[in-house]
């Protein structure tokens, strides 16, 4: 399976998920429309990795809008529903802003997320019962510094490309490495394990099938 097909499947699964439980006509219309869009993009631009990356970016930047649309369509009038819609509207605006500005915009959104994450960690320290609050404070401060480094590097890169790249890298790399170790490696391990188990089961099944076909040794068990 190539990359753009995998992204297509992931986006369709996400669309299926956030449209669950809605009015049938609304739900089916959104699912059909996204399926058509994904098909048209691949038909027009091909199946390369750049297209897969573009599709993944379109998906990721649109998630807040998807959720806001879901809240609107489900007619949630409760206070938490309205609050969630307001928060998602901000996320949607950030997605639009990043989409208009391309990669530099995405870099600034990433920097803002780092800063916001760090601020949240620090603000919630007084109500956090975690015994390692000192470590959390350092983590929050580090996130803010990383966000500032990324934002500074993104602005610097036009005039001093090497310094800009170094600043963005210094800000983004530690968390990226941490994610690779704590998320991507275990997920990849699970994928490899499940693939291996599935393959082993196929081999065992074929062997059993081969044993059954033994009365006809001249015929291949699988044409």
């Amino acid at each position: 399976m190539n990359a753009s097909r995998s992204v297509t499947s992931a986006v369709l699964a996400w669309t299926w998920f956030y449209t669950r439980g809605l009015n049938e006509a609304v739900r089916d219309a959104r699912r059909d429309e996204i399926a058509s869009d994904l098909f048209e993009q691949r038909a027009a631009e091909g199946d390369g990795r750049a297209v897969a990356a573009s599709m993944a970016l379109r998906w990721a930047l649109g998630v807040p809008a998807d959720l806001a649309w879901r809240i609107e369509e489900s007619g949630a009038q409760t206070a938490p529903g309205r609050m969630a819609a307001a928060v998602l509207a901000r996320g949607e605006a950030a997605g639009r802003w990043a989409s208009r500005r391309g990669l530099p915009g995405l870099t600034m959104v990433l920097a803002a997320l780092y800063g916001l994450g760090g601020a949240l960690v620090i603000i919630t320290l007084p109500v956090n019962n975690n015994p390692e609050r000192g470590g959390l404070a350092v983590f929050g401060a580090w996130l803010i510094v990383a966000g500032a480094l990324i934002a500074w590097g993104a602005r610097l890169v036009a005039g001093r490309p090497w310094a800009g790249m170094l600043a963005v890298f210094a800000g983004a790399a530690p968390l990226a490495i941490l994610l690779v170790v704590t998320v991507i490696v275990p997920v990849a391990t699970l994928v490899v394990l499940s693939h291996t188990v599935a393959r082993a089961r196929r081999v065992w099944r074929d062997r059993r099938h081969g044993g059954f076909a033994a009365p006809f040794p001249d015929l291949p068990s699988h044409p």
Partner: protein
Amino acid sequence: MRRKPGALLPLEVAILRTALTLGAGDEGEFHGYQIASQLRDGGESRTLTAHGTLYKALTRMRKAGLLSDRWEDPDTAAAEERPRRRLYSVTAQGVAALRASERDQATGFAPGVQPA
């Protein structure tokens, strides 16, 4: 900042302008990916507009009467071996809203938003 009732968001202005000036397709109709690629090619955005953002805007514009929509004939889609398209076109109300927005822009009034 709060959105003024009836005013257009920048993305909505871009969709209307692109659909009207670039000529979106047969009989002035366009589908989602088509308008996203024309927004990018026309310089309105650097990347293709995100799925969620685009279709939420199209839904909003359709409900506001700025766009009309129809699903294409399933036989046409089946003959071309692709999913059927939802085709949009700009309504007279959409044209009027765009003209009003451009007028506001020309007179220096920031359209689409007003202070809370």
